[in-house]
């Protein structure tokens, strides 16, 4: 399953909240005697992070570490600043700093929390679970840990556990917004779409909404064929992060569903602009297949069948397991007067559909 929530390194615990938590933690540390200058620098670093100035946090932390390489809070803050850059290129560095922070001070709960968060983003759910359970042993009932553990359990295939843990987290702290997001995802997995939408609505009306949340909600509205709402949420997601390909893809789906092919093609062009760099992962493989499919739909609607065929063929090149695309190609080839190729695609679709049964 393609999981934008994981791969995009969305910090679903909002940045502001991270920084507030950090600030308290760092300030506590800074009050220990003999660390005046370091404490001041770390306080400034945390302040920068709170204000969204990750680069300055990095600079301050590196300054502290140049004089005190064993400063666990500095390693933790540095790791969080790397995470706040929301770049896949910084994952390894962020993880390394958090691990070093914990190695120096295993009591740094928030380093453990964000290490777990990072593991989860990397698809290493078992490792995330291990960290969270360890954290809960250190500090039982901590709502943030309970909530994230719920999400981990969902990733491990147990959305029911997520519901339980996130409800527990909300009982302990009713302001725990991420818990609503994780509940929404769990309800979605359980096909309880109304409940999922209700939870999403809570999240997006909080100050902590992220593009992924809007986009997830847009997907649900597309499914319900409520295109106006879906378009609105796609646009909100894009407004928050213009580099979000999934939101453009959903927007294209909305337009295609309403036969607005030119607008769909425009959205698809914005999803992965020419020259944009991205990693060679299954996520991007599927994304490229999805984008090609939507282009195929748009060109079909515009009666540009040759281009539609090209796009569907491209989609199959990225993902040859899509029976539905073979069916569409069969139909297009028939229309084009090429029954031999149409038959080949029909046969392939039959084969795939049988295999899926």
């Amino acid at each position, binding site marked *: 399953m393609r999981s934008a929530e994981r791969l995009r390194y969305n910090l679903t615990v909002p940045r502001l909240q991270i920084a507030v938590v950090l600030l308290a933690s760092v300030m506590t540390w800074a009050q220990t005697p003999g660390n005046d200058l370091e404490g001041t620098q770390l306080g400034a670093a945390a302040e920068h992070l709170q204000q969204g100035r990750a680069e300055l946090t990095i600079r301050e932390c590196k300054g502290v570490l*140049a004089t005190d*390489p064993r400063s666990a809070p500095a390693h933790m803050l540095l790791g969080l600043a790397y995470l706040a850059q929301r770049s896949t290129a910084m994952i*390894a560095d962020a993880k390394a700093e958090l691990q070093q922070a914990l*190695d120096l001070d295993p009591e740094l709960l928030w380093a453990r929390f964000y290490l777990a968060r990072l593991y989860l983003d990397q698809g290493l759910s078992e490792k995330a679970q291990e960290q969270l359970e360890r954290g809960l042993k250190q500090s039982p009932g901590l709502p943030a840990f309970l909530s994230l553990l719920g999400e981990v359990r969902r990733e491990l295939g147990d959305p029911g556990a997520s519901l339980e843990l996130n409800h527990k987290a909300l009982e302990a702290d009713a302001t725990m917004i991420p818990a609503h997001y994780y509940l929404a995802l769990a309800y979605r997995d359980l096909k309880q779409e109304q409940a999922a939408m209700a939870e999403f609505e809570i999240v997006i009306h909080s100050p902590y909404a992220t593009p992924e949340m809007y986009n997830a909600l847009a997907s649900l509205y597309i499914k319900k064929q409520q295109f106006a709402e879906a378009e609105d949420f796609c646009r909100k997601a894009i407004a928050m992060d213009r580099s979000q390909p999934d939101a453009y893809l959903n927007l294209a789906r909305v337009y295609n569903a309403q036969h607005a092919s030119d607008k769909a093609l425009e959205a698809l062009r914005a999803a992965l602009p020419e020259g944009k760099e*991205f*990693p060679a992962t299954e996520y991007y493989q599927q994304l490229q297949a999805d984008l090609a499919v939507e282009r195929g739909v748009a060109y079909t609607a515009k009666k540009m069948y040759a281009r539609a065929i090209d796009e569907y063929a491209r989609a199959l090149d990225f993902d040859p397991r899509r029976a539905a695309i073979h069916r569409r190609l069969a139909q297009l080839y028939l229309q084009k007067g090429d029954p031999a190729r149409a038959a080949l695609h029909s046969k392939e679709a039959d084969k795939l559909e049988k295999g899926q049964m």
Partner: protein
Amino acid sequence: MPLLRKAFLIFGANLLLSAPLPLNSEQAARAEPRAAGRVQFYEVAAESGITFRHENGASAEKHMFETFGSGVGVIDFDNDGLPDLFFANGADLAHGKPSPGNALYHNLGNGKFEDVTAKAGVAGNGMFATGVAVGDYDNDGYLDIYVTGYGGNQLFRNNGDGTFSEVTARAGVGGGGWSSSAAWVDYDRDGYLDLFVGRYLDYDVRKPPYCGYEKPGYRMYCEPQLFDGTPALLYHNNRDGTFTEVSRKAGVANPAGKSLGVAIGDIDGDGWPDIFVANDGVRNFLYRNKGDGTFDDITYGAGVGYDMNGKALADMGTEIVDLDGDGLPDVFFTAFSDQYNPLYRNLGKLLFEDVTVKAGLPSSVKTLGFGVKVFDFDNDGYPDIYVTNGHVIDNVKLYDPRLSYRQADLLYRNLGGGHFRDVSAESGPALRIQHVGRGLAVADFDNDGDLDIVVSDSGGSPLLLRNDGGNRNHWIALRARGRESNRFGIGAKVRVTSGGRTQLREVNPYGSYLSTSDVRVYFGLGNATLARIEIEWPSGKKQAIDSVRADQNLLLDEADAKR
């Protein structure tokens, strides 16, 4: 769902092969008179009788260690003055097959090598061997072999009669996990070599994640960021054939380490050997030896953790050598394709500056560098840089047609003062060989006064590159015989003054990637025929010899040194 190396980007990856900075007229004028005709390298492994073939165990599961390659060790195991060769070997672990075994080749002195593995008893226990660190840990005058690997390491004690005994368990240096480069270092200067072992990823062969596109033929090796690192190991020599692991106590057990290259050098000139660790995808570690058995991680202050943009590179092999002749050891390491191989100049006071571009080295390379050696291939008195290359992804072309799995090596000639020019294209046919370079070591195998090169190839045959013409300039080679210090004088500093210039080198065959070079130290003297030699032993003793005639191998004995 794993994320892969950012380097494998599909669109818009720009190749910026920057041209070296134009030379100013002074540099150009200095460069040409010293050029002793073009040195040419010829590949002679097969004709020398080296039939070793590396098993990388390449499988459909794309286990990470299959990309690793194995190292090569130069070891004059019988003390006949001719450097012999040891190759570590991998294994087909995916199919449960043990390694075909390491190989030891005896240098016969006539340009030929003889496989003496069976007699020597160094084939190993079938594990996937990676690194080779050669050193005389028991000070008996015979070089021993430490072999790192995936799943454990092995120590072979040289019995002095052409055979070795496997003493890993007794010595207590078996390690565990996935070890990479190792180096012998007398970090406490007690006269016995201790052992530093870099380790790579926490990788479980039973659970190989799927990376790359899910299409036939597109599965690729994963990126290290998907895995946790593992702390390095430091073993203290108990002087009785056993070791005690002191990594944590010594302050070198960073759990985030993804170590590939390890280099040793006294970067601050305080007499205590420091350790540089090149990490893959996370910042490097520069451990300063405090002289009390512990180290400080001074990376952040020194500025060698990240590249010129503040990002961690995917580092591989590394060297600590004074490249600009200012008497301060600099740091060089190799990195991933579309990154660059950075040179950090030692500014003194524990500060380094990335001078890659200033030095005329490219700010981006298409090649993926592994082993590296800094040595004076043309004996002009200026240390040069040789980098062996080869991608880690065998099907990389499917993802990026600009890149290739097999690659040619690079040779940068030092034009003086730490300015370099790429002379790969003009240095003989060996530098046009497309291969999958990994380990790299240098030695004067034919004792003709210039340094030859040996390169291990992942999944292939090694290259033995004979240096033809390097000895047109004068040279001097030194072997150290420690008494109070360790027997081979590892860590001793040698200064050679000739023609008004002084060169500094340490007796230090480590660095590069998974490999050990000749323990002898070679100095190019250019046109000079006499030199002054000063040596500073790890014990603190010193000695100096004036007017030493060029073009000879000298044995420097600590017995002649004074405090």
